[in-house]
Each structure stands twice: as structure tokens, then as C-alpha cells.
């Protein structure tokens, strides 16, 4: 069996990549994809810890499925917002979209 530390490291790497992507990318769609990466890193963590510490019951797996559902919904909402913004202002660059500014 694959040791837990490997899985946690993988999840950490994925989360780091997703975080950097979300912070550094200027394209809104790429930012959404990065956020999906972070979500999935968390899912890996949930499933891994569930396997190692609570194998008798699939709590972690269920939580992961919930997270996927919420993530999909969130991505749909996010994409819808960006599509609406793009239609209005022909912009998809996050640095330039500062409608929420003070």
C-alpha cells in the first residue's frame, strides 16, 4: 500500500500548483481551473485520511463526493459570471475586471 505521506505530499503539491495558478493567472478561466485543482487536492486528502484512519466507514469518500458536487456547481456559477462579464465588456482578464473595487 502506498504510504500516507506520499498521498499527502501529492495533495500538497497539487494544492500549491492550484494556489499559485489561482493567484498568478490573469485569465479567469485558468483561475477557475486552478481552483478545481485545489479542490481535488483536498479530495485526495479526504479520501487518503479516510482510508488510513477510518477504513471501516467511508466518511471521507462521501465528503469528497460532496466537495466534487459543490465544486462543479461553483465552477458553473463562476463560468456563468465570467461569460456574462465577457459579453458585456469583451474582457476575460482578471486584473482588468475591477468592478468590485471601492
Amino acid at each position, binding site marked *: 500500500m502506498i504510504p500516507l505521506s506520499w498521498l499527502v505530499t501529492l495533495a500538497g503539491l497539487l494544492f500549491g500548483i492550484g494556489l499559485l495558478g*489561482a*493567484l498568478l493567472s490573469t485569465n479567469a478561466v485558468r*483561475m477557475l481551473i486552478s481552483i478545481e485543482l485545489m479542490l481535488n487536492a483536498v479530495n485526495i486528502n479526504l479520501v487518503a485520511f479516510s482510508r488510513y484512519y477510518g477504513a471501516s466507514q467511508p466518511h471521507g469518500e462521501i465528503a469528497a463526493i460532496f466537495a466534487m458536487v459543490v465544486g462543479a456547481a461553483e465552477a458553473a456559477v463562476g463560468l456563468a459570471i465570467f461569460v456574462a462579464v465577457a459579453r458585456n465588456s469583451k474582457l476575460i482578464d*482578471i*486584473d482588468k475586471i*475591477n468592478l*468590485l*473595487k*471601492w
Partner: protein
Amino acid sequence: MFTLAWLIPVFPALAWLIIGLSGKEMQNTGSQLAIPAVVVSLVCSVITLVQVAGGAQPETSWTWLEWPGFAISFGLQVDPLSAMMLVVVSLVSTLVQVYSLGYMAGDGHYSRYYANLSLFTAAMLTLVMADNYLLLLMAWEIVGLCSYLLIGHYFQNSGVPQAANKAFLTTRVGDIGLIIALAALFAGTGTFSFSEVFALAESGGIAQSTLVWITIGLFLGAAGKSAQLPFQVWLPDAMAGPTPVSALIHAATMVAAGVYLIARSLPLYLAVPEVMQLIAWVGGLTALLAAAVGLVVHDIKKVLAYSTISQLGYMMLGLGVGAYYPGVFHLMTHAFFKALLFLAAGSVIHAVHTQDMRRMGGLAKRLPYTSAAFLIGALALAGVYPFAGFYSKDSILAEVYLSGHRVLFWLGILAAVITAFYITRAVVLTFWHRPRSEAAAEAHESGPVMTVPLVILSLLALSAGWLGAEFAGNLLPRFLGSEVHHTDAVHRMVTLVASLAAMLGIGSALAFYHFRWFDPQRMAQRFSRLHRILQQAYGFDALYMRVFVQGTISLSEQVSRFDLNVIDKFVNWVGSATRSLAMGIAKLDRVLIDGFVVGMGTGLDLAGEKVRRWQSGQIANYLLSLVWAVLISILTFKIFG
């Protein structure tokens, strides 16, 4: 037994109320209500007198105030003294009111005059019927008020308001004594009722010191009302009122109240002989000194005023030696003959429009009824047989003689000489010889409304004394329940001396003023010092003016100075101190409180200005802060958790 007694004061009181409330509606008709009211009272009084003579003693009482432990009851009673006073008061009041129909005709304040007379009568009737000291005090004060109102009837004339004030304030001083007496009485006995108080006094149930306070206080009140030394100053000035009022005040109502009070309270006085001595001496001295002043005044009403003071002194003298019946007897006869003298004098004044006897003379022919009436009154006052004053004055002097006060007896005799002298002088100057002014030469007799009361009072002044005479069976003393205990020898001696005194007075006055054997002016010059003292009435007025009036004025000046310099200064200081304090607090408010509130506002404003910059609109920035927040939370939990 059925009695009308309770209604006696009600009628005049109702008349007063109605006339007083009608105001201008009854401007010239007040008498049409007042006179029937007082006549009804007179009839009821006479009926009551007959009932009392038959042995009835009507009394009624009801509780006025009640506390746990004691109650103050109010009540009326009619005993022989009250019954006699009721008849005297209502009779004189009736005659005075009828007489006033003529005297006051055309007066601008006619209805007010009658309203006041009615209230005066009602109060006096209540006073003599009261069965306790508290009700007596109330009626007493109303009497004082009415005397003030009536003396001040011509308040537009200069000097009249001052005379009314003087009468009121002087009697008030005495009233303080009365109130102290009532307080001491209630403290000592717990009751105001005459019968209970007298029963206690007789059984020795009142401490001697309390009794002294009570009796002296009562005497002060009585001396104020009855114008005894040293309160006599108000009475001559009270002549400022209309003459019928003088007749009423000096005969039946106001001044009689004081004598009545002492006569009523005699059971208390009998327990303190020292106070009785005081009363006797005050009365005797008043009788002599006031009579002497009557020798030198020229105003006919002033002569009668001093005569009143002097006669009241006689009554006090009589009561002071314990002579209940003679004092009361003289009160009654004096009421009749003094009312007669005043009304006759009023008729004279009405005819000649002056009160100065030097501008009269020769009126006997012009005013036959008036002069006859005045002469009868004068003879009664002088104590000539068989007029009223002869019997009553003699009985007082006999009692004084029997009580062993020889000095007081001779004082009384001397006063009798002077009395006879001054009243003869008044008769001669007013009615005899030739007129000394045009008005006197053309005077006309007044109408029947004024002469009929004179005739009735003349009959009374002639005959009232017979009630106490032996040939009439000592009617009055038996009615008053008082035994006459002077022996025949003493009585004869006193009668002889008193009659000689009256004759001496009348004779010497005739020698001076009628036959002119001596010149009164030369006498006045020879005894100029005495003459001046008498004309100034012993300087009481000047003394009181200097001591009490000036004293009060300078005291109030001092008080006003204190007020200005101390109280006002202090108040002003408090004001400015408060103002400075308020200004300090205002500054504090502006700097501290306002600064805090405004600073809070600006601080938040500035902080908001800084903080809003964080809202950059860059999603990445938000995300980064989120990451930092999570990292810091984790670190915090790592370190402190």
C-alpha cells in the same frame, strides 16, 4: 321646649349675605331687607328673654372637629346674661338702623352700609350666644372686622382709613392676648366650653399659673375691644365713621363685647384675685383719665367717645371688684343712654354739618326733640335720679365701697363729678345760649325716622335703671341670679355721695358755661400745662406713634437694609457664582465631550478612508489575504493551541 333663639343671628346674617351679594341691584334698597331682618331678631330676642325669665335655658351643641381623644364642639346657649344682651343688641341695632334711614339717605354706599350693619349685628348676637370660647373668638373677630369696615365707611375722606386701621390694629394687639388665653385654656383644660371650664375653675381643676395666663390674656382682649388703658387710643379716632355707627359700636356691639367677655368669664377671675385687682385699677384709672379728657375736647362726638371709654372703665371697675350684676347692669343702661346721646349728636351734626361745639349753640329751640333727647341722655350719663345711669353707677360704686377699695371708690366719685361736668358743658355749648354760626341758626329738626328712635331711647334711658331699683322688686338682679348685698346704710351713703358728685359736676359746669361766673379760657390758661396734657389725651397717641409706628418703620428700614446688603448680596453672589460655574461646565462640555464625540466621528471617517483602499477589486489580492489568513490561523493554533 320650643325656642326661637337659634334664629336670632340668622336673620341679620341672611340680610348681610343677600345685600352683600346683590351689590348694585340693591344700591338704595339695602335697608328694606336689613331692617325687617333685625326687627325679626328683636322679636325673637324678646320672646327668648321671656322664656328665659320663665326658667328656660335653651342650649344646643354639635361637634365641629373630632380627633381621637378629644373633640371641639360648637354650641349656642341662652342664659339670663345672654338673653339680656340679645335684647339690648337687637334693640339698639334696630333703632340705629331705622335712624340711619334718615341719616344715611343719599349716601353713595347705602347698601354696603346696611350689609355691614347686618353682619355686625349678626356677629354680636352670635358672640353673646356662644357657649364656648372658640365660637366667641370667631364672632369677636367678625365684630372687629365689621367695626373696621364701618369706621372706614367714608374711606374717601382723608384720615378715615387711618382711623379704621388704628381701630383694627389696636384691638388686634389685645386679641393676641385673647388667643394666648384660649391656647392656655385649651392646654390647661382640653375644652373651650364655658360650663366645663367654669366647673373646672370652681373645683380648682386648673393650675393657678395657667389661670393667671388665661385671665390676663382674656383681659388684654377685652381691654382692646373695650378701649381700656392702654388700648383706649382707637376709640376717639373711630368717630371717623358715620354717627349711627358710633352709636352702635359704643353702645351695644363692639365695646360691649369686652365687658361681656369679662362678665362671662367672671368665674375664672374669682379664682385669681390679683388679676381682679388689676382689672379694677385699670377700669378705675380709665374711668377717671378718659373723663378728664372729655373736659377739653370741642368735637361733640369726641366728648361722647371719651365718655364711652370712661363709662367702660366703670364697668371694668365694677367687674374687677367682683360685682357681676352692677357691671352688667351698667353695660345695659349705658347701651341705651349712650346710643341715645350718639344718635342725638348725629341729629345735631345732620342739622348743622359740623361736629365742633364752638360752632353750635342755641339749638334747643331749633331742634326740640333732639335737644330733649340729648338732655335726657346727659342726665342719665351724669347719674341724676331717677335716670338709668343713677341706678347702675350707684350700684357699681356701692360694690366698690363694700369691697374695701377706698381709693378706687374716690376715683369713681371723682370721675362721676367730671362726667357730670363735661356732659353738662356739652349740653350748654350745643343747645343753650345763642347760635354761634349761621348753620346753627338755621338748623332744622330731622324727620320722624330719626326722632322716633330718639324718643324710644329716651324712654329707655329714663326707665332702664328702674329694672335694678328696689321699688321694682330688684327685677334685673334676680333675673341675673345675683343677690344684692349692700346694706341700706351703705347704699344710702353711696347714693348721697354720688348724687352730690353729680350735682357738683353739673353745678360747676353751669357756673362756667351757663352763668359764666368763671371764664373757662382763663382757667385753661392758668392750668395751661394740665390743659395741654388733657388736650393731647396724655400723649398716648404721640407715644404710640413714636414707639410703635416709628419703631415699626425704622425696624422695617433696618430689615430692608439688611435685605439689600446681605440677602440681596448673597443672592447676587449665588447668581454670579452659578453663572461662572455654568460657563466653566460649558467650556468643559465643548472641549471634552464635544471633542470626544467629534473626534470619534472624524477618527472613524479617517479610518474608513484608509481601510476602504484594501477593497482593491483584484480577486487575486483577496485570495492572497485569504491564504495569509489561513496560514496565520494555522500558525497561531500551532503555537498557542
